């Protein structure tokens, strides 16, 4: 394309709204238009009006009457046209071309600035939401009535234990209930729950807290602990998760903003759907390190009130972690209870503050129980 020639879209040639592409040659005396369909038109420069237009305000609009009488509207996007006219164009168009160049720069700057501000506000809103999400979850959890929480907990228990045997008798059940009954009287009054322990016959090495006062204990964990006091520590720890509503908070955090906002506005329906859908995956729900430390600290206080030796509690995790790499089953409880080393340090610091005392043993022959459980398993 020769210098001083610019591509554009030309209206006003026939049907209204129909355009034809062409090339505009901007000479000093006249603008010569060569349309792609072969037609040629001439616009004397004294009949030409220059402006900005188009959807983004950045098109250069050349309007004028051709020598043959057509009222033409030419839309161009080549900024070099204005550069050309401001230097080499007829005197009447030079100043307008310069003004349009300035207007174009302002439009572009404004568009870039407004996009940048919009994206920055979007990022800021996202960051604010991320920061405030924990606070929203706390408020939403507070809005769920205990009766709804209990129903949600039952859905979780059913989902976790749906294809497994729930024990109601036998040595494992009786041992678990003996520990449970030592702990319950030491739980501070004032909570809204009916605390329930579900013993599930399953090799998974784990215990879970579900919403609404429900705790699930797998017999696989009972075979891994070395004493009733170790298990009492774990159950006391899970009890604190329940009392502090950690499972509900964890589920809400996983469920996302829509469920949290729905709950805040009094619609627990979305939360029920999420729990029905994902309740079975509660075993994969891990708590924050802060929540774990809080559950540890309060568990030790509960054990002390129940007159159970609290120093045995961390032994289980210490032992499991030392052989964790070789024990796939251990990964379940290790993965859902993060930060063992710092938790151990915090627990040891708490133990040092305890008065020297002799605790009352729970009184279960744990080695005998494990042998009975293993024997029962082999006998199946």
């Amino acid at each position, binding site marked *: 394309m020769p210098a001083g020639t610019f*591509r*554009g*879209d030309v*209206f*006003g040639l026939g*049907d*209204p*709204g*129909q*355009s034809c*592409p*062409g090339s505009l040659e901007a000479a000093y005396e006249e603008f010569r238009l060569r349309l*792609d369909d072969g037609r040629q038109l001439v616009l004397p420069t004294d009949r030409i009006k220059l402006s900005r*237009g*188009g*959807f*983004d305000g950045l*098109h250069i609009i050349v*309007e004028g009457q051709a020598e043959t009488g057509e*009222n033409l*509207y030419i*839309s*161009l*996007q080549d900024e070099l046209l204005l550069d050309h006219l401001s230097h080499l164009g007829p005197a009447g168009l030079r100043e307008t071309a310069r003004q349009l160049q300035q207007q174009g720069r302002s439009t572009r700057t404004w*568009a870039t600035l*407004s*996009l940048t501000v*919009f994206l920055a506000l979007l990022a800021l809103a996202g960051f604010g939401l991320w920061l405030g999400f924990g606070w929203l979850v706390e408020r939403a959890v507070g809005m769920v009535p205990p009766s709804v929480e209990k129903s949600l907990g039952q859905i979780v228990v059913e989902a976790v234990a749906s294809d497994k045997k729930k024990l109601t008798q036998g040595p494992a059940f009786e041992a678990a209930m003996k520990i449970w009954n030592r702990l319950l009287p030491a739980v501070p009054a004032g909570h809204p729950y009916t605390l329930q322990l579900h013993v599930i016959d399953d090799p998974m090495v784990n215990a879970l807290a579900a919403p609404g006062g429900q705790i699930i204990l797998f017999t696989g964990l009972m075979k891994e602990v070395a004493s009733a006091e170790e298990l009492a520590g774990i159950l006391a720890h899970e009890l604190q998760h329940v009392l502090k509503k950690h499972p509900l908070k964890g589920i809400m955090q996983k469920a996302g903003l829509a469920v949290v906002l729905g709950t805040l506005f009094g619609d627990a*329906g*979305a939360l*029920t*759907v999420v729990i029905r859908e994902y309740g079975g995956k509660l075993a994969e729900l891990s708590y924050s390190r802060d929540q774990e430390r809080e559950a540890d600290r309060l568990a030790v206080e509960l054990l002390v009130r129940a007159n159970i030796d609290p120093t045995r509690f961390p032994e289980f995790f210490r032992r499991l972690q030392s052989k964790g790499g070789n024990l796939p089953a251990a990964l379940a409880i290790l993965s859902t209870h993060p930060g063992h080393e710092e938790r151990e340090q915090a627990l040891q610091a708490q133990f040092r503050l305890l008065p020297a005392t002799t605790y009352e043993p729970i009184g279960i022959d744990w080695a005998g129980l494990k042998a009975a459980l293993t024997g029962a398993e082999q006998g199946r």
Partner: protein
Amino acid sequence: MKFEIIQPGSYAMIKVTLARGEAIKAESGAMVAMHPNLDVEGKVDGGMFGALKRAVLTGESLFFQTLKASRGDGEVYIAPAVPGDVTILELNGANHFFLQKQSFLASDDAVSIEAVSQGFFKGLLSGEGMFIQKATGKGTLAISSFGSIYKISLAPGQQYIVDNSHLVAWAGTVTYDVQKASSGWFSSVTSGEGLVCKVNGPGDVWFQSRNPGAFGSWIRQFIPAKG
């Protein structure tokens, strides 16, 4: 390269016939059937930043699919995800089009599709979103609508009113303003129209016969409440 509309109407589809070496790009997942001479691959069109911008700002897929006649001539059939018509636009290098988000269906590989802002208030009130797509370059472009699609051609300075959420595409020379449907707010709201787009020529404007948001509201009344 030849674009044809097959079965125009509510379930329209396009057939693109390609000579060996030619390629088109299409909305991700839009390919229905193709000749074995063609290869299909995902492509981050416009570079990672351009694709991210398009995906984040207009809700389009991060990837376009490129369909290339690598081993000889062949044809490909392409259809949009929602029921609706398809129309074909020509980019001649001098013109360009703006598309409402998600109306891009397919185009010549040389056509560039990028996300652009249409301004805060227009984005908020037009029903077309804060960001729209701009198609530039030279080649054929196929766009899809929800419901049927209709074109009006406006002379320079000619105006027309289109209800918001019904605009599908418009030429780069067309501008629009969002305004009340009636002179008073009460009348605007009670007429059921609320806000409308006043488009100004010159250029072509394509609008769709159905409003996706209104259809969503209509269908929600038949969905049982959760619980």
